């Protein structure tokens, strides 16, 4: 009879360990699902989808408007002064890259020389 009780104790121990393992794994999955839920903030986690920020080389709506104004200047001195003021307002390297990248496109689209 003592032998039978030893075998039952062995089985119970296995299940205790298994229960703890299941609880730990469930905890990680629940925590993971909570983190995944927070990625539904479109601005933070999927910035390329929004792509209307001055830090992106994709479509910048407001930069396009400024470029239309820029290309309406008649001489290069006015353009240079305007660029200086513009980059004073937006001093970042990304803005300068966006400005150069979009310039050709707006020049072509607006028919500017």
């Amino acid at each position: 009879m003592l032998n039978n009780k030893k075998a039952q104790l062995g089985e119970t121990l296995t299940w205790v360990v298994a229960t703890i393992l299941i609880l730990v794994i469930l905890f990680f999955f629940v925590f993971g699902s909570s983190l995944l839920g927070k990625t539904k903030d479109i601005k933070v986690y999927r910035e390329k989808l929004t792509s209307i920020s001055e830090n992106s080389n994709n479509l910048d709506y407001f930069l396009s408007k400024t470029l239309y104004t820029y290309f309406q200047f008649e001489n290069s001195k006015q353009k240079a002064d305007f660029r200086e003021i513009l980059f004073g307002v937006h001093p970042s390297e990304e803005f300068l890259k966006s400005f150069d990248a979009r310039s050709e496109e707006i020049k072509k689209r607006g028919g500017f020389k």
Partner: protein
Amino acid sequence: MLNSKKGGDKIISVYWFFILVLVAGGVFLMVSNFYGHPYDVREVEADILANQVSDCVYYGGKLNQNVFLVPEQKIFSELFANNFLEECGFTFGSVPEYYFEINFYEYPVPGNSLYEISKGDPNWKTDCELKDEGYEKLVTCVEKDFFAKNVDGTIYFIKVLSMVRKTEQNVKQ
């Protein structure tokens, strides 16, 4: 000896149900955690609002002349500012969920605002600066600016501020 083994099987089957309930509870928690978070698209919405509002003022390199009461004297139109929503085809609805503000400044040195067009609830403006815990439950603000040239050669520096509230639809309460 055989009788003792039968008793052991009955205890284990109760334990199986306990594990089943535990795992089912875990799955329920995971699903409710994930689907309980709504998508927060307010910044995209505020960007689109700013784009549409600015298009009504300056589009394709041309400033909307309705902005002026007397264009030759550069006198701005209060009527256009008051009727901006109707003039530009916006509908805000009875419950205020949006706010936008357009300010015209001088070029090259912007001083005080020359002309302001604003619609919606302005009381949310102070919430734009807050970054404390729970700030996402307030409004989402987007500020953009651009330069516009009038037909007479005058340049204006225009700032557009757009705000979207809609916290019930976009933020977990």
